[in-house]
């Protein structure tokens, strides 16, 4: 049994920051080294991405978007994660990490063209180090590991973060990715956003045992943390990324949160979950929680809260207007344009056939 890699506490820089219950300790909170401006900015971003989420929901109801997957309740993870990483660290999101993309600097109106059916890939992933949103569950996890292995082979110090939901951990892709990451000690941080619902399947019917503890079986550490505390997320991701950066391999963070809205705009959660469940999580809503903490620390006053709200309203209205005036691409280019760098003849014929069928209509 000598070959078995034992995961020992000394190898885990994240765990000392947290209580056994997954709460960030007061000491760790006090030594994050963030300036008051940076602390306020985390709040500002959470409000901004939530308000944008609500606006996208409205736009879908108004027929301006085909589909929307709300992330209300998970803002602390979106904002804390991006703040913890270097801008050159890669993020491989699922379909719900719109807010992370915003925090990476991608124009939300541009991102929304995806949901408006105007573009298959509205942003350049290499510019933002933010991979495309993916709909197939867990497909992004092996991609992230591959990217991390590449970074290691090139002797770079970029870290890759892969984020996914609790449901994704039931997929074979997830196991394969975790196993590869462990074997190759890839510089990757796995961030599970355990929002307790895989569409309509509750956690208890999806997962037996602890997701965080599964990391042990792959030869690296894992921890379950409070995912509705933006500073807890920031601290955990930062420590796990630093560990990966210095060559110590992967880390699994299971951030406990709650999907407060529907799975997507095609879903009606009142058919499968109770209001009391939602009420229990309402009190843990990451935004009021963090606001109260900032107020308690004397870091934010009513005037700056009002200013943030004003700024966010203006930004959201501008997003709405930019989206609605986004140019509609020619159908042929939109569908065939970005598939091949050097399209084969058969493909060009198909495109031509498609375009002439449009003209004849």
């Amino acid at each position, binding site marked *: 049994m000598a070959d078995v890699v034992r995961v020992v506490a000394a190898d885990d820089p994240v765990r000392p920051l947290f209580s056994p219950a997954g709460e960030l300790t007061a000491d760790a909170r006090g030594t994050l080294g963030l300036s008051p401006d940076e602390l306020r900015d985390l709040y500002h971003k959470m409000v901004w991405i939530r308000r944008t989420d609500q*606006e996208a929901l*409205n736009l*879908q*109801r*108004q*027929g*301006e*978007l*085909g*589909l929307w997957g709300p992330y209300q309740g998970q803002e602390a993870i979106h904002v804390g994660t991006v703040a913890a990483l270097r801008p050159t660290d890669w993020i491989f999101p699922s379909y719900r990490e719109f807010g992370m993309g915003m925090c990476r600097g991608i124009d939300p109106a541009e991102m929304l063209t995806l949901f*408006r*059916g105007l573009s298959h890939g509205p942003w350049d992933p290499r510019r933002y180090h933010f991979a495309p949103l993916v709909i197939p569950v867990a497909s992004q996890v092996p991609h992230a590991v591959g990217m991390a292995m590449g970074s290691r082979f090139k002797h770079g110090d970029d870290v890759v973060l892969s984020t996914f939901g609790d449901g994704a951990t039931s997929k074979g892709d997830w196991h394969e990715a975790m196993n590869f990451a462990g074997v190759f000690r890839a510089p990757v941080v796995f961030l599970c956003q355990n929002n307790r619902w895989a569409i309509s399947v509750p956690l208890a019917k999806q997962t037996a045992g602890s997701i965080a503890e599964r990391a042990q079986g792959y030869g690296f550490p894992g921890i379950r943390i409070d995912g509705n505390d933006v500073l807890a997320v920031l601290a955990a991701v930062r420590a796990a990324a630093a560990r990966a950066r210095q060559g110590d391999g992967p880390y699994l963070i299971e951030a406990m949160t709650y999907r407060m809205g*529907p799975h997507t*705009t*095609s*879903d*009606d959660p*009142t058919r499968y979950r*109770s*209001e*009391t*469940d939602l009420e229990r999580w309402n009190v843990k809503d990451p935004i009021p929680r963090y606001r109260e903490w900032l107020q308690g620390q004397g870091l934010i006053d009513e005037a700056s809260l009002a200013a943030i709200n004003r700024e966010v309203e203006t930004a959201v209205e501008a997003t709405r207007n930019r989206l*609605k005036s986004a140019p*509609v691409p020619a159908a042929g280019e939109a569908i065939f344009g970005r598939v091949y760098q050097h399209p084969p003849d058969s493909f060009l014929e198909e495109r031509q056939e498609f375009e002439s069928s449009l003209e004849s209509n």
Partner: protein
Amino acid sequence: MADQTFRLPDLGEGLTEAQLVAWRVQEGAHVDVNAPLCDVETAKAVVVIPSPWAGTVQKLHARPGDSVAVGAPLVTIAAQGAPASAEPAAEAAPSTLVGYGPGGPEAGIRRRARVAPSAAVEPSTDVRAAPFVRQMAKEKGVDLAQVTGSGPGGRITKADVDSAAAPAAAASAPSTDGERRISVVGIRKAIARQMVRSVSTIPQFTEFAIFDATNLMAAREQRKASGRPMTPLPYFIAGVVKAVRAYPLMNSSWDESRDEIIVKQPINVGVAVNTSQGLLVPVLRGADKLELEAIAEQSAHLVDGARAGTLPPGQMSGGTITVTNVGASGPVETGTPIINPPECCVVAFGAIKPRPMVVNGQVLARSGAWISISVDHRIVDGALATEFLTALVAELESIRA
């Protein structure tokens, strides 16, 4: 200002229609961008549609209960800031609504591909049906070779087997001799769902009592004389609140998932209101913090709002106990009310009228009314219900002007 017509979008990936549940605006009203316009129910969910424009509502194109096709006009709004022009803006520049494109509904309502039942499929031993359908057919004694499939490619569905197994009369189209079919949507559907949930999940029992309303009526007379009339409802609510304070368990919910009883702190009294749409239960929040005057004022506002259909949904949810005034509009003495889940108790008041009562050994004509309470027996036993009812009667009988 120019009129713009908002057409029903495809709200959920390939839907073709939605049923209008309720309007939240009236013609002539001003709306802001994203203000709630109406509730619609699709095959997938009940959703609120927010206004795409700010302006004045010119026309509502559908009535509650109507089925509206995706792409059909829903509401016309004289939009602020929209270009005023001779041509109506809606026609001049149709917006690109996801799901049916810019050309108006005719251009491309996205219909789900429907494969017509294929009569051309020759009956053969090569029956197309899923294993569970075959199993079902075997159990019901249905010969699948004799069934025409209505599924894709002539596949036999569960419904096909059901109709084949049912007696011919039931399977045929609804008969026309005097039957009428009413599509159940919106509030009717919500009431049905809530009531089924109540009687199928809550073991409830009902207790009755009569209270002497002499003092209550005297108090009302006195108010009337001083030009401040009050209906009995606020007294009922105030009485219930006081009795609940003494027996907080009446203000609770059963949490099946955790085997816990959730005792609610604020007392939010639902008030059952008959409206043209059906029964609505607006909620008087924090009734335990209100004086009688405020209860009267706010409950009147809620009742009026419910009847006018102008209450936001937030004011129709979150009740912790419900009051229903079954005697308010007829000679109804009492009834067996059904609990409004997830509450624990519903209190019904019958008509107040003169009735013979024995007072100090003598039969006198006194004003009185029945009270009935239905209670969740998982939470409350008969003894406690009786104590609560006793306290409620005592509260109402001790009203002072």
